[in-house]
């Protein structure tokens, strides 16, 4: 199965800009389906990003984050070819991760 995570990390000067897009329903638990039943909450709780094994960013999310979450941030350091690892865990305990290289 293709990864749920897509990342673009670009190094410019001494700063690396990271954009991540994750495929996830991010069900809030407040929405009803076509039969009028509540869809139970199902959302990513934590997404963490490591640069060469060192954490650079931690996102804690509630169900108010939009479906297929998008995230952009930047950190100092990091150069083309360095490894960047993105991982997430949702409220049902599912996880996914992706390791990519900074461009």
């Amino acid at each position, binding site marked *: 199965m293709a990864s749920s995570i897509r990342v673009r990390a670009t190094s410019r000067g001494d700063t690396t800009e990271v954009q991540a897009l994750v495929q996830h329903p991010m069900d809030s638990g407040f929405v009803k389906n076509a039969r009028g039943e509540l869809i139970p909450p199902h959302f990513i709780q934590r997404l963490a990003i490591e640069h060469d094994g060192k954490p650079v*960013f931690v996102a*804690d999310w509630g169900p*108010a984050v939009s479906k297929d979450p*998008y995230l952009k*941030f930047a950190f100092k*350091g990091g150069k083309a070819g360095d490894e960047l690892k993105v991982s997430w865990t949702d409220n049902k305990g599912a996880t996914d991760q992706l390791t990519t290289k900074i461009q």
Partner: protein
Amino acid sequence: MNGSSSDRATLSRRVVLQGIATIAVAGVAGLRFDLTGAFAAANDAYPEDAFRQKSEADAIKALYGKTAEASDKVRLDAPEIAENGAVVPVSVSSSLPDVTSIAILVPANPNTLAAAYRILPGTTAMVANRLKMAKTGNVIAVVEAGGKLYSAAKEVKVTIGGCGG
């Protein structure tokens, strides 16, 4: 732990403010540092309680254990009008030094806290994401810098809600 001593001091204050009053009373630097490690790990957990709060004040208190003051050094970018409340682009940045955390709250939603970001040393005080908004209301950005909380708010008019049909 590779944080500087000021990071440690910040963390200690935060731990103290989270209700460990005895440490403040003792005020022994060594004791505080020893405990910082243990509580830093606890701090690391997903803030489930904060995400359950209904009001802005309760959510900020559950997350940080203190209150925020308005600041023009917190920059909040959100649209004036969101045609689709399911996808509202929101970004927060700050020119304040020593930013350690950024949180975004939507008080009009069933649960106020939408997202909380840990800004680690070396990471820029900026984050952009997309949030759901149930109806028209404020978006609030809270930035923790140097152990203090600063906030900014902006009203977003929502024409189609993001939390249900």
